[in-house]
Each structure stands twice: as structure tokens, then as C-alpha cells.
């Protein structure tokens, strides 16, 4: 059949000459494809955003703390996590970059006659790096501050705002827990809220030695944070630390741990899994709209066959064979489908970009999502274009001509 290019040209002409009908036909598919791309992008963007929020906790981090008896009734009375554990890990672990003890208590912070309740963390200088926490003004305390138990501190944004307002806190002396004066050497960058809505900026950081000397009776840590040498070593480091502490605590083989070794990465992984499930759900819903768009094309094509009965009859009378008429309708459907898909892809990327900007999450356009929806759109066009086309081809020309 010597149709080919000429048929494409004629079909395109007919489509351009009936812009209303063509637009209507494309609309459903365009919206379906667009919705699919946008939804997949929303899902992926939201996932990245959620994961980013959890990554505030630190991705390359192991937390060692004592278990409370309620959690594990068979365990021995818990040994408080203290210097002994820090020393054990520092001395024996081979997969560990640094060990940061974190002592923590509620304490008031006072300056210039004002006072507010806050939290004080006793940490080592490595704490900030471990949490990718920047210093907004001034600097971190250093190793010599740590050995000398210097009375210096870093203020979280909330404390700065509440106590100092617009004034510069650097170099000022605040009083912690109503008894320990210390000099402000730095202001922490704003960290926002944790996943359980705690204000991460409502804090004062002091060297852990200073904390032990002045803010507590006995050096017990809320937890010990351990950074493995590399991210890949996270799991081996956890196993190693567990081993070291079990031996250090003299636990028998059949005794459960009297401490816990955990990692925020688990939480992040869980959040990631949850977000992925939601993303898949979104994609599934969008898939339905894609299908509906395809059915829309089929409907309009079917209606169009009914509407164009006379045209089909005339073409048949002139000498168009059933296969030529089939080809013509298929090509029309194909062109409309490709146009609709193209519009949909453009629309989807546009909407995804807009929403990503407004929601403040990264715009993620997955190439496979675009390819899938475009491929699906075109497949639907061919499939659902075929049915009406076949009907048109099988139309009896006599009846087609008589109907007028």
C-alpha cells in the first residue's frame, strides 16, 4: 500500500482543521500523562524532603545508651552510660572515627537579669561535625577548652533570640543553672524542629569536661555518639561496639544487652520506606488517570467514527480499501496520542516544578516515569485507536452513504 507519508500529511491536516475536536481528544490523555508525571514527582520530592528532615539526626552515627529495665525485664540493673564506656570504645574499637559523649540536663540560662529554661548539652568539639551543624557566628570550642574544662559555651538560636534579641551575644557571659557563668564563644546555626516537634535550637553546648565539673554530681551521659570510620562500616561498628560493651560489662552469652546500640539510619530507612509506599500509591492513582485518559481517546474516536460515517462511506465508495481506512484512523489516533502525550509531559513537568518550588522540596523528574507514561500514553492511543479504526473499516459503505 503506497500510503505512508501522504496519509500522515493528510491526517495531520484534518487534525489541524478541526482544532476543537482534536483538542478534546487529546485533553484526557494530556491530563493523564501530566498527572502521572507530576504525581510521581510529588512522591519522589516528598520522599527526599522527608528523608532530608530525618538526616538532620545524622546518617553516619551510632547511638549508645543504657536500656531502661522496663524495656527489658530480664536485663541486669542497667549500668549508667559513663566515662567507662567512652574509654572502652575509644580504646578497643577499630572501626570508629570518634566517640562523642553527650551529657544533657535541663538548666536555666540567664543574662542581663533575664532567665529562661533551656537544655545544656556537654559534648566534645566533634559533636557539631557529627550533626553537620554549622556555627552562625563566632566559633566552636576546641580541644584545649576541653582539657582545661573552660567555661565557654555555644548558644542555640532560640536562646539568642529570647535573651539577646538583636544584640550580639558573642563575648558576653551567661549564667547556666544559676551557678555557672560561661562565656559565649559561638552562636549555632538554626536547625529547626526535630521530627517529634522538639525545638533543636533551644540549647546550650558546653565542653563535656566543664559539664562534668560544674553542672552535674556524677558523670553520667544521656548517650554516647559514635562515628564509624566510613558509612559502610556502620553495621560492623555497631557489632564491634556491642561486643566491646558486653565484654566490658561482663555479660554472659545468654544474657541480653544492658545497653542499646542504635542508629538514626534505621529511622531514616523506615521513613524512606514509608515515603516510597506513599509514592507508589500516588503513582498508582495517577496510573488510573492515565488509563481514564486512554479510554477518553477511545470514546472520542468511537464517537468520531459514528460522526464521520458519511466521510467513511464516501472514502469507501471512491475506492479506499478497508485496510486503508483502518490505517487512516489509526494514524489519526496516533498523531493525537503523540500530541496529547507531548502536551502531558510538558504539563506534568511544569506542574511538578511549580509545586516543588512552592513546597520547597527538590524537583525530581524521574526519566523512567516520563518514559513510562509517554510509552503508556502512546500504547493506549494505538490500542484504543485500533478498536474504532476497525469499526470504521468494517462499516458497510452503502449504509454509511445512506445515513444523511
Amino acid at each position, binding site marked *: 500500500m503506497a*500510503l505512508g507519508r501522504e496519509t500522515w500529511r*493528510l491526517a495531520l*491536516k*484534518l487534525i489541524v482543521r*478541526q482544532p476543537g475536536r482534536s483538542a478534546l481528544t487529546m485533553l484526557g490523555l494530556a491530563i493523564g500523562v501530566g498527572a502521572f508525571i507530576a504525581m510521581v514527582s510529588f512522591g519522589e520530592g516528598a520522599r527526599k524532603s522527608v528523608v532530608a528532615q530525618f538526616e538532620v539526626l545524622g546518617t553516619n552515627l551510632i547511638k549508645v545508651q543504657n536500656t531502661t529495665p522496663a524495656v527489658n525485664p530480664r536485663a541486669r540493673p542497667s549500668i549508667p552510660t559513663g566515662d567507662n564506656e567512652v574509654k572502652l570504645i575509644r580504646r578497643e574499637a577499630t572501626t570508629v572515627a570518634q566517640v562523642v559523649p553527650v551529657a544533657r540536663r535541663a538548666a536555666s540560662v540567664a543574662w542581663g537579669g533575664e532567665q529562661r529554661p533551656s537544655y545544656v548539652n556537654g559534648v566534645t568539639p566533634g559533636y557539631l561535625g557529627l550533626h553537620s551543624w554549622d556555627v552562625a557566628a563566632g566559633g566552636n570550642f576546641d580541644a584545649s577548652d576541653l582539657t582545661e574544662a573552660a567555661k565557654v559555651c555555644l548558644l542555640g538560636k532560640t536562646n539568642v533570640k529570647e535573651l539577646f534579641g538583636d544584640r550580639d551575644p558573642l563575648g558576653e557571659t551567661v549564667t547556666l543553672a544559676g551557678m555557672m557563668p560561661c562565656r559565649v564563644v559561638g552562636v549555632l546555626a538554626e536547625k529547626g524542629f526535630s521530627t517529634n516537634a522538639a525545638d533543636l535550637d533551644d540549647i546550650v553546648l558546653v565542653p563535656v569536661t566543664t559539664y562534668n565539673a560544674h553542672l552535674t554530681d556524677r558523670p553520667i551521659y544521656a548517650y554516647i555518639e559514635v562515628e564509624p570510620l566510613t558509612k559502610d562500616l556502620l553495621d560492623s561498628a555497631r557489632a564491634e561496639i556491642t561486643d566491646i560493651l558486653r565484654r566490658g560489662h561482663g555479660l554472659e552469652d545468654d544474657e541480653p544487652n544492658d545497653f542499646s546500640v542504635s542508629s538514626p539510619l534505621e529511622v531514616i530507612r523506615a521513613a524512606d520506606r514509608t515515603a516510597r509506599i506513599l509514592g507508589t500509591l500516588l503513582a498508582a492513582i495517577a496510573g488510573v488517570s492515565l488509563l481514564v485518559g486512554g479510554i477518553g481517546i477511545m470514546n472520542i474516536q468511537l464517537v468520531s467514527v459514528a460522526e464521520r460515517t458519511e466521510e467513511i462511506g464516501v472514502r*469507501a*465508495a*471512491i*475506492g479506499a480499501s478497508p485496510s486503508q481506512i483502518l490505517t487512516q484512523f489509526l494514524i489519526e489516533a496516533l498523531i493525537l496520542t503523540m500530541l496529547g502525550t507531548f502536551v502531558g509531559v510538558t504539563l506534568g513537568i511544569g506542574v511538578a516544578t511549580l509545586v516543588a518550588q512552592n513546597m520547597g522540596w527538590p524537583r525530581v523528574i524521574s526519566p523512567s516515569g516520563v518514559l513510562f507514561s509517554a510509552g503508556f500514553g502512546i500504547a493506549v492511543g494505538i490500542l484504543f485507536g485500533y478498536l474504532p479504526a476497525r469499526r470504521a473499516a468494517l462499516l458497510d459503505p452503502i449504509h454509511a452513504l445512506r445515513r444523511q
Partner: protein
Amino acid sequence: MPTPVIETLGLSKVYQGSVGGVPVLSHVDLTIEYGEVVALRGPSGSGKSTLLNILGCLDRPSRGRYVLGGSDVSGLTREEQAWVRLHYIGFVFQSFHLLAHATALENVTLPLHYAGVPRGRADETARDLLARVGLSHRGSHFPAQLSGGERQRVAIARALTARPPLLLADEPTGALDTKTGAEIMRLLLDLHKERGTSIILVTHDPVVADYADRQIFLRDGKVVDTEEAQVGARA
């Protein structure tokens, strides 16, 4: 004797209804020579349209033989029928049946498109034909922008682009006023003379029928004697 363009032998058509078959044509024997203009007449319900559809390869006879240009076309498949229509038969209808979304030129080009003639040559042929029917200046007009007479001229040009030896005209002047109708008839006859195209003319109008070399009367699906039918028609 040369082969006639059309020869039918015992052509019958029965439509299958709910209570047995309804015979529409019975034992029609026809011979039409190349270059003849024949008028097909008869009251409505006489089977004219059915006969025209069968002769136009739009329909198949239930029984009997239909020989077109020397070949039996009674039992062709739909694809084969389409091929025969494309190369052997041109159609002119009462209501023109032009494609509304195609220009006059595109309408005339259509058969050549289906025949796979390259666009340049097809356009040239179509333009020549449009000029021949007096519409060289109307090529880019859409049917809605043309008068009834002009539309029928486009339809005639379209019917002749593929140079078929046979033209089937179903009430070609039925939708036109008398003067325009006469012009169309004159054009058809001129083209018939120039190209030697055989024409079968279906019409109610005795004035139109008089243009033909010969008239065939149908009644109740049978060809009847010319005189008898005329007497019947006048009675």
C-alpha cells in the same frame, strides 16, 4: 463483438428479514456496452438503488453473475471490491458527498491518493480536471464555500480522476435547480464524449433520462419492457 463493460446474468438480491428473505432484485440480465449512456429508471422501491450498489461493487448479488470489463466480480472480497471501485468505477451522488474538511482540490486528488499516485502528479491531474469542469479558481475552497452546482462539478471531477471506464450517477441533478441541472448534464455528456466513459444514470426525471442513449426500467426488482413501463409510468 467487443466485450461489454457490464454484463449481468440472473442477478438476484434477497435481503434476509425476520420472516424469510425479501427479494429486491430477481433475475436481472443487463448488457451495457463501452461508451454507452444508460438511464436506469423506475419507481422507488423498484430495486434501482440495490442494482446500482451491486453494479458499483458496493454490494454483492445473492445469486447470478456480474461481469465487469470481462471479469466476474460477483464474489470479490471487500479489499478486492475497493480495488475495483478505485480503478473501474466513478461515483456521482445526489448530495455530492464531498469531504467537508478537505478542499476542492484535495477532494479531487483523493482517488489518486488511494491509488498511490505521487502527490505532485496527483495534484497536477486534479488541477487539470478541476479546470476542465470550470473550477480552476476554486481549488483551495472548502465545499461549504461552493454553490451546489460547483460542488457537483467537484464531485464529477473526483469521480473521473482515476480514469474509470464506468461512471455511476445517482440522481446527479436531484439537488440542483433546473438550469444548473442541465449544465451538469451537459458537462457529464461532454466528458463522456471526450473520454469515452460509460455512464449509468439513475433518475426519476424523464427530462434527465432523455439525455441517455437508452433507458432501462425496473419494477419490483425486474427489468421490464421499455414500452410497457412507459405506458405504466404514464398511466
